[in-house]
């Protein structure tokens, strides 16, 4: 084979063939897609055999080296579960209310779509791809472009589908982008916020007052005494002899925060890096968006996922010199390094959006 061809010819042939194949695959070729499907079946027994050999060795090694860490992590997770039980009840009732409202307003949401449970069976072997392989495919109704979630939120979308497995492009991959929305509670004291409750109290220690009310803002006013009047009786704070507080007039007002919705394009920047959010309105990031705000899918006709799937939390808003837009970084909710069970949302997005 090699003796008949000179070195330069072999190398030239290899390079030209590669360029031709890349061009064909980039344009979409059914023959190549079918070949991938066949190869997936061929390599499956090899993967199974390698896993059968490597898994016991890996488990034994982990048992020896990581036992203490796992035990500590287990205890921490148990504590975390106890804390989260309370939040769970609250969240469930909120979801039920949300569904009722959606039904009333005839709006679509993620709850209208069925999901297919799947397990992650492999990761990308390359350092330059952020993908995982899951054990469901076209036989289970999975199609290219469908969003994939885990318990914490969106993890990516399907990019390749075979009969019994699929490839998921993770949301941190630079190729990944999705329409997202940021919901922030605009609780700043502005003219639009209306006081809904106003009470005047007197003769109550300030410390008691602030701890017993649940208002969002508290105003304390001390009136000057008119001439000729005796000072008002004072109260003593329990446990603090000598510490006295004059009787006061206190006004408490509660404001209802206004929820502001901003939309933009969320893009991956590579593994271990936060995602980057670019707003449609570049001034949004300067005014309303704050660290800690929740980011979820925006939905819509051109969206790759239905509205309301949580994606992450804004962790950094950095003002850039010479630009009206800020750099907004979003950290995904899902732990992409520890994926195991996931769910494919059977939502077929607009094919033009998938192409983008």
């Amino acid at each position, binding site marked *: *084979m*090699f003796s008949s*061809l000179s*070195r330069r010819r*072999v*190398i030239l042939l*290899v*390079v030209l*063939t*590669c*360029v*031709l*194949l*890349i061009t*064909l*695959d*980039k344009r979409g070729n059914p023959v*190549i897609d079918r*070949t*991938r499907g066949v*190869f*997936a079946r*061929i*390599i499956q027994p*090899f*993967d199974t*055999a*390698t*896993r059968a050999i*490597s898994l016991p060795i890996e488990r034994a090694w982990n048992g020896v080296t990581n036992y203490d860490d796992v035990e500590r992590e287990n205890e921490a997770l148990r504590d975390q579960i106890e804390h989260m039980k309370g939040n769970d009840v609250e969240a469930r009732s909120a979801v039920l209310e949300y569904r009722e409202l959606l039904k009333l307003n005839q709006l679509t949401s993620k709850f209208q779509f069925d999901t297919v449970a799947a397990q992650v069976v*492999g*990761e*990308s*072997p*390359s*350092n*330059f*791809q952020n*993908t995982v392989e899951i054990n469901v495919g076209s036989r289970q109704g999975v199609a290219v472009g469908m969003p994939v979630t885990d318990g914490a939120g969106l993890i990516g979308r399907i*990019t*390749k589908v075979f009969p019994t497995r699929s*490839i998921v*492009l993770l949301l941190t*991959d*630079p*190729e990944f982008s999705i329409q997202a929305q940021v919901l922030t509670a605009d609780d700043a004291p502005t003219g639009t916020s209306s006081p809904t409750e106003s009470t005047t109290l007197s003769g109550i220690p300030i410390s008691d007052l602030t701890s017993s009310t649940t208002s969002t803002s508290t105003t304390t006013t001390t009136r000057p005494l008119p001439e000729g009047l005796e000072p008002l009786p004072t109260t003593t704070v329990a446990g603090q002899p000598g510490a006295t507080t004059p009787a006061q007039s206190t006004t408490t007002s509660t404001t209802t925060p206004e929820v502001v919705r901003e939309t933009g394009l969320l893009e*991956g*920047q*590579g*593994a*271990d890096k936060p995602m980057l959010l670019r707003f449609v309105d570049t001034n949004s990031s300067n005014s309303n968006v704050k660290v800690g705000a929740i980011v979820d899918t925006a939905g819509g006709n051109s969206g790759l996922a239905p509205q309301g799937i949580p994606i992450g939390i804004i962790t950094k808003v950095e003002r850039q010199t010479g630009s009206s837009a800020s750099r907004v970084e979003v950290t995904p909710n899902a732990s992409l390094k520890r994926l195991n069970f996931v769910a494919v949302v059977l939502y077929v997005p607009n094919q033009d959006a998938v192409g983008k």
Partner: protein
Amino acid sequence: MRSIVLGPLLRLVPVGLVALSIQRVVFAAHPVFHDVKLQFVLALVVAAGAGGGADRGAVAGFVLGLMYDISGNTPLGLMALAYGLGGMTAGYVHSFTPDPQWWLASIFAFFGAAVGEAAIPVAEVITGENGWLTSEVKWTIPIVAGFAALMCPLLMPVGRWMMGVKRKKWKAMLE
């Protein structure tokens, strides 16, 4: 034609399948320092190149790279191109000596693997997949190349057998 089918390709494909499975199951799941995934298939390619020469290295890289592309999400031909370049670079050790010592082969395997790994983000940028040519490459390339250099003495006999190369036997010149 018969020599092609019965020659290197007949060995390349099954060896490639085993190497690819090891890469997908073992090395992909256990990233090392800076979350870099060691590249077993690339190590095999550069070992084949160091053992058989630049043209054989290019062919081994092309075939194993194609298998890598078909099994994953990369455009078909991208890894084949990168690995082909890596195998070819490692094979240039034969320009210096026809039967390189293990340490010399390891040095060329290091450079071959570095070229192969660096070619991936470059090829991705050329094909329109931006975002991977970042500062993280400064960790990825030396770690992957170092692993290939360490594995080279072990994988070179496999690479030679895979490419149908027989070790040269030196004979004293007859007077």
